[in-house]
Every structure is written in structure tokens, then in C-alpha cells.
């Protein structure tokens, strides 16, 4: 990118800071509360305590639900990105029979209200006799987030110059070699971006999960049900831990997976 003037640089940084305040402001409430006693429904700012964290370690239901959420999120994200690459290549491929229609189909689950997708899938699974389980939740999430993965990848693929691929063929590379050595490296940041968006959506998905799950809870299902009686203090602790953990993972990933002077590829 270009060299910015001092004024432009300052303006952009200020706006970025504002957005960070908007993003993190709401998170401060549960995180700050997690380190204090909660009595009579109110945070006791004068008595710091780790009791919320102790309570969390004993709350087997929440921990199981959280692990289920991770399983679903990772699997669905992996499948969605894989299918996203596959579909993107297919529809960039000249083999374009019904391309617009199929793109529309892929987008449908993202456009329809989640309750509608959830019900359709539930009735479909019932009629084809597929038992409802975490697997059906994974299928539901994959269908739901696929559009996001596909769109992110196809936008990047479009900007990939055809001449690269032709050059690769001219040099005698096979399709697979071209895919692995030319296409995939160019897709890298789009793939990571797509995966993050998909995982984030899956992680928070309530309505489809609730309708197509068997007897397994996911974290959003538990939180949704808890709205009736109010969240227990250990939920604050969980939120704080998730934030700490993901931030740490991100920093470590960037630190050890990227070369020092990494540039976007």
C-alpha cells in the first residue's frame, strides 16, 4: 500500500480506534463482571473474586456444550471451505451448465431465515430417517455458511489472472500441480478469511442447531435457554476465557506461522 501523509494516517488510526472501542466496549461488561462477586443480581465492585471461574469448572453441562460447539464449528468450517473451493473452481471452469441457478441455490440457505432452514432440514432428515445428532447440526451449519465461503473464494479466484494458469499449463504442469502450486497459494488469505467468517457464524448459530440437534446442546442453545432465568456468573467467566484464549491463539499463530516480514499473498 501507499505511503500515507501524517494527517491521513492519524485520521485512519483514530477511526480504527473508534471501531475497536465499539467492538470491545460491549465485551468489557461481562469480562469485568467475571472477576467480582455477584450478589443479589448486581456486581459487587468492591469484592473481587474468582468464584465465577471455580463455578465454571464444575458446570459440566456448559463445558460439554462448549466442546460440542467447537466440534461443530471446526468440522462445518472445514467442509464449507473445501466445498467452497470445489464449487468456485467448478463454476470458473467453463463447465457452467446452470451456473447462475446453482450459485443462487448455494446462496439460498444464507438468504432464508434460519428458522426456515432449520425446519426444512429437520423435516427432510425426519423423512429420510436420518437420526438427529451433532452430525445433522454439522450438515446444517455447512449448508448455512457455505455461501460465505464460496463468495469469499470466488471473488479472489476471479481476480486471479487466467494467464497464470495458462502459463502453468504451458510449462507442462498438470491440473493438480497447477492447483497446488499456482491456484492454492494465491487463494491462501481468502481461504483463511473464509474459514474465520464461517467459524464465527457457526459458533453463534442458534436456531438451525436447536432444530436439527438430537440430544446434544451447543453453547448458543444453552445461552438461548438461559435467557429465561438469566445468565449465571460462570457464563461471564466463560466469555472472558474464550476471549483470552482466542486472542492468545491468534497472536501465537501470527507470531510463529508468518515469516517476520510477512506480506499478504
Amino acid at each position, binding site marked *: 500500500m501507499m505511503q500515507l501523509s501524517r494527517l491521513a494516517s492519524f485520521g485512519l488510526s483514530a477511526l480504527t480506534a473508534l471501531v475497536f472501542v465499539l467492538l470491545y466496549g460491549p465485551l468489557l461488561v461481562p469480562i469485568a463482571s467475571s472477576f467480582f462477586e455477584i450478589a443479589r443480581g448486581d456486581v459487587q465492585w468492591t469484592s473481587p473474586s474468582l468464584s465465577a471461574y471455580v463455578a465454571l469448572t464444575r458446570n459440566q453441562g456448559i463445558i460439554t456444550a462448549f466442546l460440542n460447539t467447537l466440534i461443530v464449528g471446526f468440522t462445518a468450517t472445514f467442509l464449507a471451505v473445501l466445498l467452497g473451493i470445489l464449487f468456485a473452481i467448478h463454476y470458473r471452469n467453463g463447465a457452467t451448465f446452470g451456473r447462475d441457478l446453482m450459485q443462487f441455490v448455494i446462496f439460498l440457505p444464507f438468504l432464508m431465515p434460519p428458522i426456515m432452514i432449520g*425446519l426444512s432440514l429437520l423435516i427432510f432428515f425426519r423423512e429420510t430417517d*436420518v437420526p438427529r445428532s451433532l*452430525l445433522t447440526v454439522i450438515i446444517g451449519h455447512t449448508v448455512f455458511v457455505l455461501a460465505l465461503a464460496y463468495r469469499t473464494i470466488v471473488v479472489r479466484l476471479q481476480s486471479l489472472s487466467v494467464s497464470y494458469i495458462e502459463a502453468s499449463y504451458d510449462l507442462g504442469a498438470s491440473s493438480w500441480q497447477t492447483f497446488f502450486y499456482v491456484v492454492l497459494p494465491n487463494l491462501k488469505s481468502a481461504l483463511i478469511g473464509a474459514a474465520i467468517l464461517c467459524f464465527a457464524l457457526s459458533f453463534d448459530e442458534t436456531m438451525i442447531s436447536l432444530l436439527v440437534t*438430537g*440430544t*446434544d446442546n451447543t453453547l448458543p442453545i444453552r445461552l438461548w435457554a438461559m435467557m429465561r432465568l*438469566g*445468565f449465571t456468573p460462570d457464563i461471564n467467566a466463560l466469555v472472558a476465557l474464550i476471549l483470552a484464549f482466542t486472542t492468545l491463539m491468534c497472536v501465537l499463530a501470527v507470531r510463529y506461522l508468518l515469516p517476520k516480514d510477512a506480506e499478504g499473498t
Partner: protein
Amino acid sequence: MKIKLNRRAMIAMGVAAPALLRTSWARAASELRVMAWQGYADDDWVKEFQEQTGITAQVVFIGTDDEIWAKIKGSEGKDFDVFAVNTAQLQRYIDGGLTTPHDLAKLPNQKNVLPRFQDLAQIKGIMRDGKVHAIPFCFDSIGLIYDKAKVSPAPDSFTILWDPKYKGKVLAYDNGEHNFSFTALTLGFPDPFNLSAEQMGQIKAKLSELKQNVLSFYTTPDEALQLYKSNDVALIWANYGQQQVKAMKDAGADIGYVNPKEGALAWLDTWAMTSGVQDKDAAEAWVNFLLQKKIGEQLSERTGFGNTVAETGSANPNDKLVWLEFVEDPTKRSDLWNEVKAQP
């Protein structure tokens, strides 16, 4: 040739995929599948139940009546063995053939419940053709919560919700069915669950007025509490009754609770078995287990709800309670309620 191959492969896939899912992920039937509200199946009860009976209860928690219906109806009752549902909603499940009647002989603890829940035939809606489709578990009245500092003297009628003095300080509940019923009571209509078109028109106009007085329509007790804490609220139409009172008092609010003279609606949650129940004995063991005095007391202590086994202060003996019934046309009520909400 090429197309043919594709099509054949596609068909093969279509047939193979569900079959594959079916065989490899089939679930063992040794556990009990429970759908419950938060607070109706706490971890320690599930654990004790398992110790006593050897049955593992897998509980999925739901957040609204709407989801229970979507989930049970969508799976035609196959996804759960036993579920919590209120008596008014229950009718739809019985109509749809989604329930399995209980065998009272398997529920010895039902003999020890409070007097008013002893004779199940007296409780409208849970019996059909002489069969018991659900067992009462938990109830509460839907009265008025008022802030003692802001509302004095204590209100005795729902009409106070329309008082312009409290404009923007009223919390009401976001549900067309209940709002039509309680407004019918307020207007003095004899049967709040069977309204004529003309009565509905009057109520709709009255609810449009109520909307002008309301700060927000809430759906959960905790939401109402949060609204109360961060805003100037004087009156709450308390869909969750004593539970809300308890939560608010715990939070230090100086509030009172009345069941108004027009009569307060009251809901009654029950346990019903689905038509797809896999192990009827296990499901009945679960219900019987929950009908213990100790569980009832813990339920009321933890949630504030009234239970059916141990006496609590949920309703004064003199209070007029109107048990919720299935309404004449929920679709119509919901449509009218949507119209009220859509008005500017």
C-alpha cells in the same frame, strides 16, 4: 455418455448418503431424551435420577414455546421422549397426535401432590377421552409488579397499565395470545379464550393504546429485570409471576406483586410424553422422580415458580386465578398482535 454417468452418480449419491448417515450414526436407545425449560432439569437432579434408576437423562433446553412446537412437530415427536409444555399449548400436541398418555400407576408420587392438583380431571386441558396426557409440574399467576416508590397506593386493577401517568414506564409481554386474554379480562369479557370478532376489534384498539404507554415488550424474566435496572420502570405485566418477583427482589428492587381484581391469568407447565417415546417406563420414572417434595421445594427456591407438591406463596387463596386455555384462533390473535406492533 458423460451426462449419463453424472446422473447415475448423482442418483447413487442421493440414495447412499442418507443410508450411510443412518447406519453409522444411529443412537443407542438406552437413554432418556428430555426437552425442558431452564430450571426444570438441573444437573444435580439429573445426576441423582441416574444414581437411583440407572437411566441417563439427556436434556436439551429450549427458550420459547415456539421452539418446542417447531422441534416436536418438525420431528413428529421422534426426537424426544418427554417434554415440558403448558396446558394451553398442550392441546395442539394432543390434536396432532404428538403425545402418549401417562399411566398413573407408574406415577406413585402423583398421589402426594397439593390438593388442587390431586384431581386431574378438574384441571382443564390435561385429560382427553379419559386419558391423562400430561402431569402438572410447575405453575404461576400472571399479575402486576409495581415499584413501591413510584406507584402508591398499590394497584388493584390492570387498568393502571393504561394510565398516562406511567407513559414510557410500563413493561408488557410480547405475546398476542396472552395480551388478548388479559385485555379481555380487563374489559370484562366473560370468556377471554373465546372471543368474537367484535371483541377482538375492541381489544386490538385497546392494545394499540397500551403500546403508546409501554417502554418495551419483553420475552424473558431476565430481560424484564435488566430493563428495570437500566430504565425508569414503574409497572410490569408479569408473565412469569413470582419468578420475576424473586429475581427482582434478589436484585434489591423495592417492589410489590398483586393479582388484580379482574382475575389473573395463570399458566401451568406439565410433563408430556411424545408419540415417539422410546422407553415409556424411563419417561414415567423421570416424571415420578420430579414429583418429589424435595425437588418441588428446590424448584421453587431456585426459580421462584410455584410447584405442585410443596406449598409456596405463589397465589393467595382469595386470588382469582384464570388457568390459561387453548384460545379460539391463535393464528388470528398473532396476526392482530403483529398489526398492533406494526403500527407507528
